């Protein structure tokens, strides 16, 4: 294709081709400092192409295609090209990833051990991971956690953090503007702005971690804590995984080992400050 970006995020290499220069320029700017795919051979190809041939010029409209395609995916406006590239990469992972058990979860690391956070969209797992990433933790990823079925380790997948609506303002203060992508307003998910993880998250992206704690955060409620039983954790994680069924027995074993190995806890929080202190407290209790 005419325009092309190649980036590696953790163990996964991507090639993103585009019929327009804009999406690729935005992607390269946002992923400044990321490595290229191993052996220069990407795991997945994403194509951003006109939905119909004339849509390259007339009311340009981006169809998200690639190695794996969702036929019903709706096209995006050219102004949202960066989002299209991000969705394209997500789609390849969700539909095509078979090396790792893919959990829809954010993850941060400290002392070689990982904290996983999962929950429904809007529960705050992404924002919470981003906050912790600026407060001494290493951000491993805000979207997908990659569990290696062979070792049980979680691999980092530190894509740009997708901040939505109010979360944009929460994060914008105190961070350099250069780490932010453009403000994308009026997307199907509201206003979105991407944030590049800090330098350490990128420099150490090849270091996996041992899962140590699983949280189910929920934003917008009075502070509360609840233990979650293994059966509930298991079922909730099957729902949070995009490839649990496709992996068959190895997916089942990976998930069972994870659930048996680490404690899990549901936390409600009214604001970010209380969330951070709650997380620190629970983390400290792990060793207690």
């Amino acid at each position: 294709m005419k325009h092309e970006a190649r980036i590696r995020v953790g163990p996964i290499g991507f090639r993103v081709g585009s019929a327009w220069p804009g999406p690729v320029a935005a992607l390269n700017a946002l992923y400044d400092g990321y490595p290229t795919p191993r052996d220069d051979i990407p795991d997945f190809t994403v194509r951003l192409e006109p939905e119909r041939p004339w849509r390259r010029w007339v009311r340009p409209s981006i169809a998200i295609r690639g190695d794996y395609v969702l036929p019903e995916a709706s096209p995006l406006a050219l102004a949202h090209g960066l989002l299209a590239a991000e969705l394209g990469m997500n789609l390849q992972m969700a539909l095509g990833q078979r090396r790792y058990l893919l959990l829809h979860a954010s993850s941060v690391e400290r002392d070689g051990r990982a904290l996983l956070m999962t929950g429904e969209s809007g529960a705050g797992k992404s924002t919470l991971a981003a906050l912790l990433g600026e407060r001494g933790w290493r951000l491993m990823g805000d979207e997908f956690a990659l569990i290696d079925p062979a070792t049980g380790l979680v691999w980092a997948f530190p894509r740009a953090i997708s901040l939505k609506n109010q979360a944009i303002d929460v994060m914008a203060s105190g961070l350099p503007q250069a780490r932010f992508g453009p403000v994308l307003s009026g997307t199907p998910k509201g206003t979105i702005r991407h944030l590049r993880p800090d330098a350490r998250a990128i420099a150490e992206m090849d270091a996996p971690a041992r899962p140590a704690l699983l949280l189910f955060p929920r934003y917008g409620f009075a502070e509360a804590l609840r233990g979650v039983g293994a059966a509930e954790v298991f079922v909730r994680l099957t729902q949070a995984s995009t490839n649990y069924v496709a992996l068959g027995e190895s997916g089942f074993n990976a998930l069972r080992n994870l659930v048996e190995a680490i404690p899990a806890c549901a936390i409600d929080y009214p604001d970010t400050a209380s969330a951070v202190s709650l997380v620190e407290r629970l983390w400290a209790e792990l060793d207690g």
Partner: protein
Amino acid sequence: MRNAALLVRALADPSAIIGLDAADWTALVAIARAESLIGSLAWRLEALAVPDAVAAILADARRSAAQAQTQALWEGEMARRALAPLGIPVVLLKGTAYAAAGLEAARGRTIGDLDILVPRGALDQVEGALLAAGWEWVKEDPYDDLYYRRWMHELPPLIHRARDRMIDVHHTILPPTARPTPDPAALIAGSVALPTGLRILSPADMIVHSAAHLFADGDLAGGLRNLWDIDRLLRGFAAAPGFWSALADRAAHHQLQPAVARALRLARAIYATPVDADVAGPPRMADALYRRRLLARDGWGRERDKALRFAFYVRSHWLRMPPAMLARHLWTKARKSR
């Protein structure tokens, strides 16, 4: 310009990958995925030294195909249990048949829907038994439903409520409106029982069905994969005494001699498949067009040669139904899509 020739060379002769650079590998992986041949490629290249990044991609593809086969075989078993009380022959078709019989064609092959062939007279019973066992209709649209029942060689697709897997129940291998009229009773009579009680087509009929599917029915979408099936099947069957003459007989009996001959010629041209020259027949002018259509894909996995693809698409409908019926069908479809 890279095209699917890269893929078919690597499949036919794995040593052709020696000397590929990163751009070639990138294209090869994208094309193999687009043609649903990444699993087959992964098995063909299993013993060869490839770059680490490629080795990881191919290992994933092998695992993925193995899991897909486990699922497909289980789905076949579920259908067997649902239909066993009817006491009718149930013949597995395509991917599930290859996997159930342990044929080389199944290695790394993706398997989507479960395809079975049953006697036409038993269709109502089969439909009832599947509905009772948890399968449901996919298409609720009355036009589509009626279209299938009146003009197609299969029931409207059913999907299993809990397992989310589709089953296509065939009563013959081509739509009744198509010009060739295969003999489904002969397909069933010649079929071979597996230890499970499920059946598969005889070797010659398997080739005939695959060729019918490739040329007399579809628009060549997925054609390289179908042709790879034919290559693998022929290489496995050719050693049996009398296979080629049986193939010629069955092709003629099912009125599919031209499709089978063309399948053989194209397999030979694309995958260097050893074929019987008499059954393959003399080369035809159109063979080159078919070959070009089958290889029309670029290094990004995109379809190329849009005009040629469209011509084959129109042809597929032309083959499937008489002109007046085609006009009526396309008119109805166009009005509904607005």
